C-alpha cells in the first residue's frame, strides 16, 4: 500500500511537471501581458509609405502615415524608430539613406544595420470616392520573412481614424494574427493538413457539425502523403494582394557559363533558369494557373482553401486561408494552442479555428 501510494504521488508529480504545467505558465504569461503586447524590448523601425499616385499633394502622407503608426505602436510599449530616426541612423552608421522603395532582397542587409526586430514600410495610392489603398510590408528580421498586406480604407478627414484601424491590424500581426473577412457557415472548404486518420476525421467532424461542407481534398487518402515537417512550407503563401514569403532574389544566383561550356551544359543552364523563372520569379502566375485548374476540377465549389499545420505533438497549430473566388490570402494565424487540460488537443484547436472563422471582428477567438 505504501509503495502504491508512493508510486501514485510520483505519477501525480509527473503529471504536474508535464506539458500541462507549461500550459499554465504560458497562459499566465499571456494573461499578465497587456493585449497586443509583444515583448517590450521589440524594436520596430518604420520606413516611408511611398506615394504611388504621382500627385505631389499627397507627398506629406509619406511621413505622416509611418510617424502616426510609430506613435500608436509606441503607446503599446514597444521601441520604435520613426523614418527620420532611421534615416539619421543609417547615415551615421553606414553612409546610407532611407529609400522610399526596397526590393525584398535588400531588407536583410538594411535591417541588420538598424538592429531592429521588425521593419515596416510600404506604399499608398488614393482611390476614387475618397478611398485609399495601403500596401504594407512587414519584414521580420529573425525569420527573414516578410508579410505583405493590402488594405483599402476611407481617407478620413480626421486621419487618426484610419491610422487607428491600421494600427489595430498591425498590432494583431505582431500577435501572430491577420484576418480580413469572416468565413460564414455554408462555405465549402478544401482542407489541407498534416494530420490524418483519426485526427483528420476529428477536423471534418468539427467543421461539418458547424455547417461547413468539406470538399474531398486530401480526404480520399488512408494516410496523408504530406509529411509533418515538409508540410510547414505551406506557412509561406503568395497571392496577389497579401503574401507571407521569404526574402530572396533569384536573379542574384550565378549560372556560370562561357566559351568553355558545351551545348549540354548551356541547355541545362537554360532549363534551370526556366525553373527559377516559373517557380520563383513568375510564381504568382504559375500558382494562379494551378489554382484555376484546381477550382475547375472541383467544379468551382471550393470557396476557401484552409491550410492547418500542426506541430509534432498536435497541441499547437498555424492557419492559412485562401479565398478561392478572389485568389487572395485572407487569414494568417500562428501559435494556436490547445486549451488547458483539454482531453483532445486537435479538437480544441479546431474549435478555436472555427470560432475565429465565423467572427466578424479582427480579433482571434480565445
Amino acid at each position, binding site marked *: 500500500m505504501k509503495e502504491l501510494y508512493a508510486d501514485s504521488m510520483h505519477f501525480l508529480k509527473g503529471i504536474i511537471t508535464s506539458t500541462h504545467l507549461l500550459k499554465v505558465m504560458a497562459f499566465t504569461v499571456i494573461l499578465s501581458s497587456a493585449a497586443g503586447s509583444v515583448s517590450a524590448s521589440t524594436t520596430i523601425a518604420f520606413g516611408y509609405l511611398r506615394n504611388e499616385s504621382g500627385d505631389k499633394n499627397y507627398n506629406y502622407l509619406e511621413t505622416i502615415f509611418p510617424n502616426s503608426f510609430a506613435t500608436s505602436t509606441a503607446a503599446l510599449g514597444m521601441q520604435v524608430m520613426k523614418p527620420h530616426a532611421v534615416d539619421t541612423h543609417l547615415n551615421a552608421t553606414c553612409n546610407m539613406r532611407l529609400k522610399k522603395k526596397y526590393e525584398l532582397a535588400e531588407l536583410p542587409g538594411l535591417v541588420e544595420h538598424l538592429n531592429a526586430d521588425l521593419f515596416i514600410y510600404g506604399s499608398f495610392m488614393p482611390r476614387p470616392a475618397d478611398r485609399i489603398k495601403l500596401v504594407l510590408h512587414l519584414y521580420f528580421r529573425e525569420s527573414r520573412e516578410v508579410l505583405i498586406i493590402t488594405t483599402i480604407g476611407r481617407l478620413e478627414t480626421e486621419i487618426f481614424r484610419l491610422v487607428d484601424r491600421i494600427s489595430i491590424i498591425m498590432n494583431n500581426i505582431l500577435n501572430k494574427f491577420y484576418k480580413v473577412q469572416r468565413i460564414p457557415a455554408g462555405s465549402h472548404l478544401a482542407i489541407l493538413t498534416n494530420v490524418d486518420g*483519426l485526427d483528420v476525421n476529428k477536423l471534418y467532424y468539427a467543421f461539418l457539425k458547424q455547417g461547413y461542407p468539406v470538399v474531398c481534398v486530401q480526404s480520399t487518402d*488512408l494516410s496523408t502523403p504530406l509529411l509533418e515537417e515538409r508540410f510547414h512550407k505551406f506557412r509561406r503563401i503568395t497571392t496577389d494582394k497579401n503574401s507571407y514569403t521569404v526574402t*530572396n*532574389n533569384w536573379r542574384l*544566383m550565378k549560372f556560370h557559363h562561357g566559351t568553355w561550356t558545351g551545348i549540354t551544359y548551356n541547355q541545362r543552364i537554360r532549363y534551370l533558369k526556366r525553373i527559377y523563372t516559373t517557380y520563383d520569379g513568375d510564381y504568382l502566375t504559375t500558382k494562379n494557373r494551378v489554382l484555376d485548374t484546381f477550382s475547375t476540377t472541383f467544379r468551382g465549389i471550393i470557396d476557401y482553401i484552409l491550410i492547418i499545420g500542426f506541430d509534432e505533438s498536435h497541441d499547437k497549430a498555424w492557419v492559412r486561408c485562401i479565398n478561392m473566388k478572389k485568389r487572395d490570402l485572407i487569414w494568417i494565424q500562428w501559435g494556436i494552442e490547445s486549451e488547458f487540460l483539454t482531453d483532445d488537443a486537435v479538437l480544441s484547436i479546431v474549435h478555436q479555428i472555427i470560432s475565429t472563422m465565423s467572427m466578424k471582428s479582427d480579433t482571434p477567438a480565445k
Partner: protein
Amino acid sequence: MRKSNRRIPLICLAILLTVMSCSQKRGIFISTQKVAPSSAIAIIVDHPNNIKNVIVARFMAKGFRVIAFNASDLYSLSDVFDIRDFKKVSFNTSLSDEKSLLSMEKTYDNIYKLHVYNYEIHKAELLNEMKAKWRVRYLILLDLKDWETISWGRAVDLNSYEVIWVENYPAQFGDTTDTIVSHFIKSMSGL
C-alpha cells in the same frame, strides 16, 4: 496517516485517470447524407485480402453494389508532372552563397506546394473518371483496428465531391471485423 485517508486520494486519482483515458478513446460521428444500400460504392482499405473479403461481403450482404478496385493502382504521388522538376533544382552553386541557397530553397518549396495541388487535381480527375466509367457514387474509406484502439471510416459523395460521413469508433470488447463493419454500415446508411 490512517489507511482510509490514504485511500481517498488514490481512489480519486484512479477515477481521474479512468476518465482521462476514456476521453481519449471517445468516438465521433457525423453524417450529412445517408449512403443508400443500393448505391454503387468503391471501398478503400489497407488490410490483407482475407479482411478485405470480409468487408466486401458485409457490404454486399446489405445490398451495396461494390465496385472492384485497388487503391494502390489508382494514384501515386509520383504520377504528377512537377515531380520531374524536383530533380532538376540545381545544387550547382556555392554553399557559402547564402542568397543562392535562399533562392534555391524558396524555389524548391514552391515546387513542392504546387505538386501537392497538382496531386489533388490528379486524384479528383481519376475519381471523376471512376464515377463516369463505373458509375461509382460513393467512396468509402475504412481503417479497422483491434479492441482498445479506434477504427475510423469516412465516405465521400462523388457527385458533390463532399465528405458526407465520418466516424471514429472505439472497438468494444467482443468486436470483430464483422461487427465493426456492420456498425459502420449501419452508421452510414441509417439502416
